[in-house]
């Protein structure tokens, strides 16, 4: 497990998801990477029933195929975020909470695609889709030997720019400049990287994609 950076790949020319993935895969393979299986990150969101509390609370439940035995759950109360990592059976428990928390099925969002390995790097090219609707492409790059984001950001940035061009910014993603959950007096970029950090980055991007969703597209699907 190492530092993972998540980067959305902009869809400028209005291409389809698979064609962007194809385009990126070719570049990654040209660098010498080998495809090793596929990956899937999915996220389901539950909200509290209105009677429960004044401010609605939101529970996100995420799975990451890189950590197949774990469930990641993030609770948003409006003022703070609490993350929980648990066994797979947690999914069954969530189902038992239905009187208080309900899920909106059409908000289920996932990122899915091929997984490549190149030396110590892992590259994942994912198509983001919300209930079968294509939303965009996200690229995940993991550098496994390093645990401190600030130490290897430059390396990862250079590597990402190598196949994604100028879409990658020169500054570290804002997620890493927020205070760390474990040690509040230092930034996440100087803290030891945890699997939950990957999941939180995914959640951040998923939420952005959800906000972008305009209702007509959803209506068309139904």
């Amino acid at each position, binding site marked *: 497990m190492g530092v993972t950076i998540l980067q959305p790949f902009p869809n400028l020319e209005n291409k389809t998801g698979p064609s962007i993935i194809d385009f990126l895969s070719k570049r990654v393979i040209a660098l010498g990477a080998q495809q090793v299986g596929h990956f899937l990150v999915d996220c389901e969101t539950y909200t509290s029933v209105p009677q429960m509390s004044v401010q609605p609370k939101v529970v996100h439940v995420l799975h990451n195929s890189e950590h197949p035995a774990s469930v990641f759950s993030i609770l948003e109360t409006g003022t703070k975020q609490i993350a929980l990592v648990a066994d797979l059976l947690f999914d069954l428990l969530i189902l038992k909470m239905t009187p208080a928390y309900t899920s909106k099925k059409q908000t289920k969002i996932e990122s899915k695609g091929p997984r490549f390995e190149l030396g110590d790097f892992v590259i994942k090219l994912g198509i983001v889709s919300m209930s079968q609707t294509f939303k965009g492409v996200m690229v995940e790059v993991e550098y496994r*030997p390093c645990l401190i984001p600030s*130490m290897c950001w430059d390396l990862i940035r250079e590597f990402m720019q190598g196949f994604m061009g100028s879409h990658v910014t020169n500054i570290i993603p804002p997620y890493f400049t927020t205070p760390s959950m474990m040690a509040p007096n230092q930034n996440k970029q100087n803290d030891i990287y945890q699997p939950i950090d990957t999941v939180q980055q995914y959640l951040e991007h998923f939420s952005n994609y959800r906000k972008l969703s305009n209702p007509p597209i959803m209506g068309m699907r139904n």
Partner: protein
Amino acid sequence: MEQLNSALISIKVLRSRVGQVFETLGSGIRLEHGEEGRETKFLMELQELLNAVNNNLRELESTTNGLTPAPFNLGNTSYLSQETTQERQALYSQLVNSYKWIDKIHEYSQLATQVLSGNGLKRSYFNNSNKRRRPLTSCHNVMPHAVDSILNNIDRSLSEMTIKVWRPFATNAIVHVILGRVLKAAFVFKGIMIEWITVKGFDENFDEIDDLWTESRHKVFRNVQNHTHSAMLHFYSPTLPDLAVRSFMVS
């Protein structure tokens, strides 16, 4: 060789003949002997067989006498073949195997000396001691507390590094070094000389204190390990500057 072969054949013949005698004896008087005088007939048959055995035995003796004495002397090993206990009977083949390996080692070591004499590695004083006439203290035989004090000095001078010393095998130290939050390394010392270095990532563990042969999962650290090994050979000198140089190189 032919003589040996014929001797072996005659042993076989003798054995089968003796077997026949016992078979006949075992089955006793049979139908073929008829009604009259069957005891005498049986005795006759037995007599015949015994005569044949005698002949075979004589034959065997003559062929064995013709054999030249053993061409090589096995020394004490020859007694191994007389071992009767079950579990020790396999010893002989093991012995032969070990001879084979010794031969191979001989061969390789000869090749190695040829190569090494071409490229001198100054790991000991035996070759170049004529240059430094002063009787130097050996690197291999240093008191443990002297090693400790040297390591402590290094530990104090490098703040980024934590050092832990283990002594699982009597006096020789194994040192675990944690460098910042980047990597871990294990050094094997022989006296004050570094003998082996293993480098791993910060998230990997040394499962045992002397877990020295598993390599890192990450290519970067496997490369670093190669570099440390060449650095170890390059910087070899009695006063151990290489720890400092190594950490300098890595960070």
